[in-house]
């Protein structure tokens, strides 16, 4: 991956008495698809708006290729934004909507025509030039918004939950298209969402945020498999989080049983959080299991069954393609690889 294109250094921002961002630091590399992921109110949209120039940080610097751009207004930044709610110009047809940025650059009419048509082809909506935004569906409007942003050939595209208003099927289709688009254009995408699946599907890098602070930065696989703390584990996918005690390196005790794991570097007898993904728990016969429990509930989820297995004081969420009868006693088996040990927070 390339050099840093954007550096956020020590960004602080408050709205009234609410501190939204506290000393926020992040760098974004060239040609990266980076996703800011977090629950609503975690400050992710504020970060995007600060990069776009719509919001001024109270403190800190925004560097673009090493130059501070905090005081540069949005219209002078070579970034374009795809907003949450399409925000097409209702009084202009699709052609004029897409051509808006080019006209400001005082481009030749023939050049504008060529570029607009090309942009409409990229978003798969050729022939829509004469239509008005209110005659388009939500998905089509969002594509036009993307066309309008990419036609200016920005170096960075900002996305503020652009798929939030679309239904599931359309959203999944657009996710693949956005990923393809990023590969075609070869520019930096900064994407904001609260949808963890969306983040995992598209991103090169995910920044998990909560309360204006970064919880973890990493690629989707690492974020999913090696969550750094309880918050990330909870937020990304489903997980079982239980209290455990680290006896020594690679030995952890939880649910009145001692397990071998692959983590070390904790103090002797340190209390830790143990995270186990529901798909990593195997159901075996009661004799072969490390833990023994009773199936309390069974839910059908399409591809798999989700079962709650009660063992001692803990209810384990287990996913399996095979169904077990409710009330049956089963054994649970967990491989060392699948046991994730995290320092207790707070």
């Amino acid at each position, binding site marked *: 991956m390339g050099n840093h294109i954007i550096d956020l250094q020590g960004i602080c921002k408050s709205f009234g008495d609410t501190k939204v961002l506290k000393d926020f630091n992040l760098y974004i590399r060239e040609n990266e698809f980076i996703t800011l992921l977090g629950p609503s109110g975690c400050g992710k949209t504020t970060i995007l708006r600060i990069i776009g120039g719509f919001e001024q940080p109270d403190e800190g610097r925004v560097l673009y290729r090493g130059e501070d751009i905090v005081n540069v207004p949005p219209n*002078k930044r070579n970034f374009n*934004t795809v907003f949450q709610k399409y925000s097409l*110009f209702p009084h202009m047809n699709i052609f004029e909507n897409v051509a808006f*940025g080019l006209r400001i*650059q005082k481009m030749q009419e023939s050049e504008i025509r060529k570029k607009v048509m090309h942009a409409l082809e990229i978003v798969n909506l050729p022939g829509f030039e004469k239509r008005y935004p209110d005659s388009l569906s939500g998905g089509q409007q969002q594509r036009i918004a993307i066309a309008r*942003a990419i036609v200016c050939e920005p170096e960075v595209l900002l996305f503020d939950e652009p798929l939030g208003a679309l239904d599931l099927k359309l959203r999944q289709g657009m996710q693949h298209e956005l990923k393809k688009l990023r590969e075609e254009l070869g520019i930096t995408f900064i994407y904001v969402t609260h949808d963890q699946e969306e983040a995992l599907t598209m991103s090169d890098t995910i920044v998990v945020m909560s309360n204006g602070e970064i919880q973890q930065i990493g690629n989707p696989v690492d974020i999913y498999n090696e969550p750094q703390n309880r918050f990330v584990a909870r937020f990304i996918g489903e997980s079982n989080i239980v209290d455990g005690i680290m006896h020594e390196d690679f030995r952890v005790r939880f649910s009145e049983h001692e397990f071998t794991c692959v983590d070390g570097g904790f103090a002797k007898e340190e209390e830790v959080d143990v995270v186990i993904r529901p798909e990593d728990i195997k159901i075996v016969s009661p004799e072969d299991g490390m833990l023994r429990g009773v199936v309390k509930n069974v839910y059908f989820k399409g591809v798999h069954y989700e079962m709650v297995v009660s063992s001692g004081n803990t209810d384990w969420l287990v996913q399996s393609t095979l169904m077990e009868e409710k009330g049956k006693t089963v054994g649970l088996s967990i491989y060392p690889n699948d046991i994730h040990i995290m320092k207790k927070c707070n």
Partner: protein
Amino acid sequence: MKKNNLLRAVALFPFLIWIILLIVVPVILIAYYGLTNADGVFSLDNFRQFFQPNYLRVFGRSLYLALLATVICLLVGYPIAMILAGNTFKRKTLLVVLLIAPMWMNFLLRTYAWLTLLEGNGVFNTILQSLGLPKQAFLGNVNAVVFGMVYNFLPYMIFPIYTSISKIPKNIIEAAKDLGGGNVICFFRIILPLSVPGILSGVTMVFVPGVTTFVISQFLGSGKITLIGDIIEQQFMHAGNWGFGAAISIIVMIAVVLCMWLVNRFSDDSEVIMP
């Protein structure tokens, strides 16, 4: 379905009575008086009488002064509406109250108040004299009449424009900035075109009463500036020539409807994008 229609008819009934009694019947009466002579026989004499240079001149003056007042209201009102709709101005409520407060007062009273301020020995001239400056004849001229119109009708320009500007979603303006548009481009290509509906109703609400006013011209024009409204009033109240008064009313009505139609036509065409 049928029941629903019945319910709707019942619900509409009071409104229909209202419309018929207060709008349809008076218009029919005006048409009747305008289209008959003193003997109650159909005739176009009343209309013919209007097409004389002195009446046409008055009518022309009315249209011109109302147009002037409308343009001034638009130029003064639009920036105020923008300030009201924006975020930067902190004392918005105070400004709204200041704009609305005069409307709580009776129209005649407000105009009388300006009379005492502007007349020969009024407040302004007293101030001028105490400063050693010569007295001014504020009243009895075209300026005073236009001023009176602007003063009285300005809120009717501001509020429709304010409403249509504040209805423009913020992210549309941000999108325009994002695509490289500065404040000037944002104003001319986004805010102005999207506030056209507000401008149109503002223009209508200033121009129509402006054309037909007679109180303002009588008070602030000291009776020296005759408008078409004055003539209509004279015909009904003093000359007793209801037929002629009714005919002028119809002509004014037609002229106003024509003007409004033209304005609407013009605004439809303006949707063609500016370069």
